[in-house]
């Protein structure tokens, strides 16, 4: 699937939240490629402690001859709600299977699991510090864990089923700004901390199994196998191995989901004892990795995004860099993204297209679309008047949703020129007549 170049200059639909007092901090659309939820309801968390749900397909009203659509929220959970959050909602995600539940994490140190239909809190987790981000695995078949990154150094996994913490992952030396589940394995969690480290965790084992190091790099990414398989030599071989191992790894997971308890560690998880065997101490491999002080960014890691195939990881840091990591090798691919400045104090939410050709990055007041593999800017979307915090790309509608400090969520869609020409020709002409040259003298 090829994304049409976003020419949002024509007509962007604008979802405005008139009642809101705070900046939009996080967006999540109920998108699940596997499942059948329709990708219709957009969930947003805002800094005034509210979370709201929008219907992105049906606008509540149209302005300007139907060219500007305004969406009002379907419902909103804010401070006036008895179970609402007191401080900013930093993270709001849908339950990955359906829209019956959603999870909000807030600066008031709580993670709430809400029943959408009754808008009641069903499970509540108290965290040791401000919650920066929550994440649920979209491929998980055998667990329903919420990974939470907080001010605290430890990453906690909250189990909705039992209402308790199942894991406490320690290794970071500072607060954890972003957490992200792998797209290829339900057990793999990626976390990025304020200490600049990106750690990979296998939640079935102790400790983290990979710490990304910005000084370990490889030149260029390995090209997609199907196209370049015959032409490439050694790298493609290793890639092939990696790829196949991932494929292998996927099958047993499905089995475990079906109740077959076969356990196989995919070769994706390179044990640190092999890579750093020279330490020579009989330490537990998990604990050993906690001594690894490698950093992926100078400063905090503010955003993480795993590509759709689960092979690459994009990370944004407070050093205003965007890095592309090869997860298989754990190397920085040295793609130079033309990022000028990034938000440094808050976590940002990146978005990418499903085929991983474009990544959308909030760059201060604009959103930039970069080509993932070359790093070149393919589009700069200007529309917000204050810093953009988050974006979400809907591959079904080919629309981008962006939230900003100016309390608006903008929808960026590809041009609908064809539709306009056929459907409402007369109307269109009449409208465009008002935008013509008008030289009186």
């Amino acid at each position, binding site marked *: 699937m090829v994304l049409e170049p976003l020419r949002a200059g024509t007509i962007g639909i604008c979802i405005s939240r008139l009642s809101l007092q705070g900046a939009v901090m996080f967006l999540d659309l109920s998108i699940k490629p596997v499942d059948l939820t329709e990708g219709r309801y957009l969930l947003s968390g805002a800094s005034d402690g509210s979370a709201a749900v929008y219907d992105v397909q049906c606008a509540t009203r149209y302005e300007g001859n139907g060219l*500007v659509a305004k969406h009002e929220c379907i419902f909103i959970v804010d401070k006036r709600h008895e179970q609402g959050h007191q401080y900013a909602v930093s993270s709001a995600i849908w339950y990955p299977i359906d829209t019956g539940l959603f999870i909000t994490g807030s600066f008031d140190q709580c993670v709430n699991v809400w029943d959408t239909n009754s808008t009641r809190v069903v499970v509540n987790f108290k965290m040791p510090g401000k919650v920066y981000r929550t994440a649920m695995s979209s491929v998980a078949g055998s667990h329903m864990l919420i990974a939470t990154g907080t001010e605290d150094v430890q990453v906690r996994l909250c189990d909705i089923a039992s209402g308790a913490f199942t894991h406490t992952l320690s290794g970071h030396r500072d607060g954890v700004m972003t957490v992200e589940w792998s797209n290829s394995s339900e057990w793999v969690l990626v976390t990025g901390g304020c200490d600049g480290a990106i750690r990979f965790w296998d939640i079935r084992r102790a400790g983290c199994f990979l710490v990304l190091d910005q000084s370990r790099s490889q030149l260029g990414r390995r090209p997609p196998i199907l196209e370049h398989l015959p032409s490439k030599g050694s790298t493609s071989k290793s890639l092939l191995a990696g790829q196949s191992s991932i494929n292998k790894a996927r099958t047993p997971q499905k089995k475990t989901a079906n109740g077959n308890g076969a356990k196989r560690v995919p070769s994706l998880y390179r044990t640190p004892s092999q890579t750093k065997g020279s330490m020579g101490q009989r330490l537990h491999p998990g604990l050993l990795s906690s001594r690894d002080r490698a950093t992926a960014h100078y400063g905090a890691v503010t955003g993480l995004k795993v590509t759709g195939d689960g092979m690459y990881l994009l990370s944004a840091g407070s050093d205003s860099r965007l890095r592309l990591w090869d997860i298989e090798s754990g190397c920085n691919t040295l793609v130079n993204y033309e990022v000028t400045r990034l938000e440094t104090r808050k976590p940002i939410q990146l978005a990418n297209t499903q085929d991983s050709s474009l990544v959308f990055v909030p760059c201060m007041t604009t959103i930039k679309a970069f080509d993932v593999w070359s790093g070149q800017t393919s589009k700069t979307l*200007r529309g917000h*008047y204050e810093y953009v915090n988050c974006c979400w790309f809907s591959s079904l509608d080919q629309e981008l949703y962006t939230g900003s400090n100016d*309390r608006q969520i903008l929808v960026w869609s590809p041009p609908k020129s064809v539709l306009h020409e056929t459907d409402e020709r007369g109307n269109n002409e009449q409208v465009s007549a*008002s935008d*013509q*040259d008008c*030289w009186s003298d």
Partner: protein
Amino acid sequence: MEEERDEGGGEVISLIDRATNSTAAEVNPRLLKSIKSVVRSSDSEIELAVETLMEKMKKNHSQVRYLALLIINELFMRSKLFRSLLVVNFDHFLSLSIGFRRNLPLPAPPAIAVRLRSKAIEYLEKWNTSFGIHYRQIRLGFDYLKNTLHFQFPNLQQNAARLQQERREREIRSKEILLKKFETLRENLPSIKDEINSTLEEIGECLDILHTNEDDFIPTGLADDEEVEEFRCSDLQQIRIESLKESERVHESSDNKVICDALRELYKLLVTKHLFSVQEWISVLLRVEPSDTRFRDSTLKEFIDLQNHLKAVRKRCEQSGCALTNTTNYEEEDFWEEGKIQVFGAKSSNAPARPNEDLASTSTVNEEKNIDPRQNEASNVSERLDGEGDDSDSNSVRRKLLSEAPVMNWGSSLDNWSSNRDVLANQRGLELAGHWGRVDYDAVIPAAKIAELNVQATVYKEEHVDIQPCLAPLRKGGLCQRRDLKVCPFHGPIIPRDAEGNPINQVPSTDKGTTKLETEVVRQLAEQAVKNVRERDRWETKKRINDRKSLNRAKLAKVREHNEAVLREAAIASTSHSAFVGEDWEGEKNRQSRAKRAKVCEHDEAVLRQSTSRSQFAGEDRDRENQRVSFVKEKKQTLASMLRKKVTTKDRLAQRLLNTRATDATVRQLTIGEDAKYREAYPNQW
């Protein structure tokens, strides 16, 4: 157009440069026009214009930005390409023109910056209404400024709509009123007409009576005139005609006085009421839009006829007698005058004014005025004054009275000025509207109490005192502008000074003497102080020199000591290497070193003693010098030195010797013990 196309690109840049380089509040219209025509010629010029205008917007001066904004508005409303180019960086443009970002405020001249902002906001609103649909940046920017930052937009469109609406409503209302009037007119038309006609008839009758009275003798005169007419020259003839006309007029006399009065009254009625009402009705009829226009037209016609008729009658009345018009004019003047004086009189008089009655009386019969029993002295005076005949006299008296009269501030106490009546009261207080209900004549507030309540309060007004500035010359130039009552904290008492700030001594004799004395004393004191300070300085330098000397000595001693120590150690090292082998090495060395150290110590002691004694000497020297300077200091010094002398050298030597012996012994014992331990611990190394 052809010419402009021929001119190369960049024309617009210089034009914009010139247009924005001015201090005017508007762009030069000729420049603006040429900019427009140049820009219109080609797209590249538009691109250039956008670039240069944005450059101008980035200039760090509000005036330049303001003019650039005006040009931008002109082009923005006209060119689509210009819009689409400007909109790309619209947030930047907004921050430059409105300055909504806190880190990017508008630049220097604040007044113009304010104007720039308001203009930019106005334009943004205008652009949003006309192009907001097509350019999301404009729309979003407008939304953002309005809903998030809560900027106040002038709301031009809505305001205009509201005004329109209001006007429409007003019109509808006035139409309704007119219609209502029209309806009443339709009902009352016969009665109105009757009234007017009756008045007209009465006037006609009056005039007829007057003329018939006159007619008796006029014809003869007329006949005479006609006979001799052709013999007179033209100017004489003119005079004749005038006199003839004059003779035609009715002269008021005792027998036709009543008729004249009636005529006057009728005339007044005619002019003030009927003519006026007819005109009013005509205007109503002209403006009204009723359902049946026929009635309106017919009545309008009638009324116009009536009006003409009335005017004719008025003319006849005026022609009939000069006294009539004159008196009416007088009366009207009196009417005004009366009212004024009445008010004035009421203020100064005891009785409450009754203007209505007075008006009635004046309007009806002039002569009756003086008979009015209610009128008191003052009003009588005023009325007498403004009676016909002695106008100038009345004015002068009035002026005199006015000049004498004190000016009172307005207040409630003026309502019953020096009235000695009791005031009725009810349970709520003063019975102000007693005639509306039952009145209890027993419940009364005594006049004294009322007077007490109405004591006029006057506010004391402080005299404005102009505090003189200090005006003492400042070091950096200019004069001190501090305004203190008596003494400036920086320049002493405030005295009159000339333009340069030099004091002007108004009373030189006494002041100067004292100041001289004072300055003398001050000078002496200063000299004394300087002397003291110098002495202290001298003494301190001496002391410092002495200190330095003693320090040097001590340092030298230390160096010497150190040298010796180094030499000694070198000697020990050399001896220990060569001389001692075997078991006793350690102990021997210790012993040796101890002994030597003791010796060295003694030596050191001696050196030290020397140095201290020297320093004491120095101290004594210093003492001697100090004696000259201060007595107290000397005493202290001697005391200190005495205290120091108490420990004699002998004592100290003895002490030292004792100590060294004791330590030597213990050290030896300890080292032996150590040796033993060492041997035990490492037996194989021995």
